[in-house]
């Protein structure tokens, strides 16, 4: 482990002041990625700033402007909140897939986002629910649509001293359903070979899709949206044929690598299957 100092400020302002100091200052939420990365010298730190004593970063609520998830809220809490309140099924599903229960109890959704793994399970769910990242630094605040937040594997657009403050997801209409599925070779505790989150809004009087959002994990340097598939599906009457065509188009947005978890070809086929399955689940949820 590198030698670092540790501070646990109790206000956002003092956290931002600490992070703005010279040196490698690393924010810590659940620590389930950062502490492992520090131990294995994949990331360095002079100062670790624990965000878990800052009330506004631990806040989760839904109000008129949507679902607000503070950046230090654990996966377990997000899972329990979204399961109880409804409306964000894909997020409820994906927060139960990150690592083990022990990891979910500490690891935050905000941390899963800032760790920026292409395979992160919560990110496709956040993307299809059109999450906006609200960031803060000593010099001000920014709102960044989550799709613009990622710069590469493990890389975000956050600048030095800037942290994710909260994720804000607009409340979906009543005619909306979402789902997230990933493929791993075992039943639990693994990293997605590929993952797909789908969201559709369907006009019940015409059965036409009025909104489609499809996001893919583990098939590009960052999580990606399947724009061509979304554009095809919007305005279409959704049925098994439309779902098949959408799944074919989603494959076109995948630019996977071949690695120990799977070949590029296999991952593309997984995108086809998982897109079909998530859309089918969405339809079932709307029925």
């Amino acid at each position, binding site marked *: 482990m590198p030698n670092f100092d540790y501070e646990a400020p109790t206000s956002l302002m003092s956290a931002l002041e600490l992070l703005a100091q010279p040196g490698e200052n690393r924010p810590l939420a659940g620590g389930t990625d950062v502490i492992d990365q520090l131990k294995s010298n994949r990331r360095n730190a002079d100062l670790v700033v624990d965000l878990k004593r800052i009330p506004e970063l631990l806040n989760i609520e839904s109000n008129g402007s949507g679902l607000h998830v503070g950046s230090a809220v654990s996966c377990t809490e997000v899972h329990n909140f979204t399961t109880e309140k409804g409306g964000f099924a894909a997020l409820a599903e994906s927060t139960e897939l990150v690592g083990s229960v*022990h990891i979910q109890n500490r690891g935050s959704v905000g941390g899963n986002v800032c760790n920026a793994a292409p395979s992160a399970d919560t990110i496709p769910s956040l993307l299809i629910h059109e999450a906006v990242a609200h960031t803060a630094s000593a010099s001000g605040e920014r709102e960044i649509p989550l799709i613009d937040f990622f710069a590469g594997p493990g890389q975000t657009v956050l600048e030095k001293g800037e942290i994710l403050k909260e994720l804000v997801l607009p409340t979906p209409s009543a005619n909306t359903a979402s789902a997230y599925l990933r493929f791993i070779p075992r039943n639990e505790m693994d990293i997605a070979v590929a993952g797909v989150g789908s969201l559709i809004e369907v006009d019940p009087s015409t059965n036409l899709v009025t909104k489609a959002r499809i996001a893919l994990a583990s098939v590009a340097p960052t999580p990606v949206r399947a724009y061509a598939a979304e554009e095809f599906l919007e305005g279409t009457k959704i049925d098994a044929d439309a779902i098949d065509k959408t799944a074919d188009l989603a494959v076109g947005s995948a630019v996977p690598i071949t690695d120990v978890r799977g070949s590029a070809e296999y991952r593309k086929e997984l995108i086809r299957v998982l897109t079909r399955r998530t859309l089918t689940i969405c339809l079932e949820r709307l029925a």
Partner: protein
Amino acid sequence: MSKKQIKTTVNGVEHEILVDSTWTLLETLRDQLKLTGTKEGCSNGNCGACTVMVDGQSSCSCLVLAPEANGREITTVEGLADHGHLSPVQDAFVENSGLQCGFCTPGFMIATTALLNDNPHPTENEIRLKLAGNLCRCTGYDKIVRSVQDAAERLNKA
């Protein structure tokens, strides 16, 4: 590197100790407080041998910095028994042979205790899913699952 003064409650006993910023909770429990029931396995959150409860929630103590324990309540395997009497979870693991070498057992019993606090009537699938963060290389898991089912029955009768 700097030292931090923390106050933490471990198994009901309050400790005021000086910890290094870079120590993990696992190191503080084992090397400083001499509570060696909590084991170090992979040290990266995959195996669950170091599972303890932090404010009632199961956590990998290898992925918690010691100063993060300030003001928190920690429960380790040493805190499960009550005045020398094994807890129902411990009894169930003993009587169902839910262990062989025993290295993973403290983590499994803490994870089981936390699971049954949250969900007193888990299905077999729920048990296997919720304990997926604890690895055992001896038992093949079946006897562990039976131990958890028996522990649930014991707790529900109590």
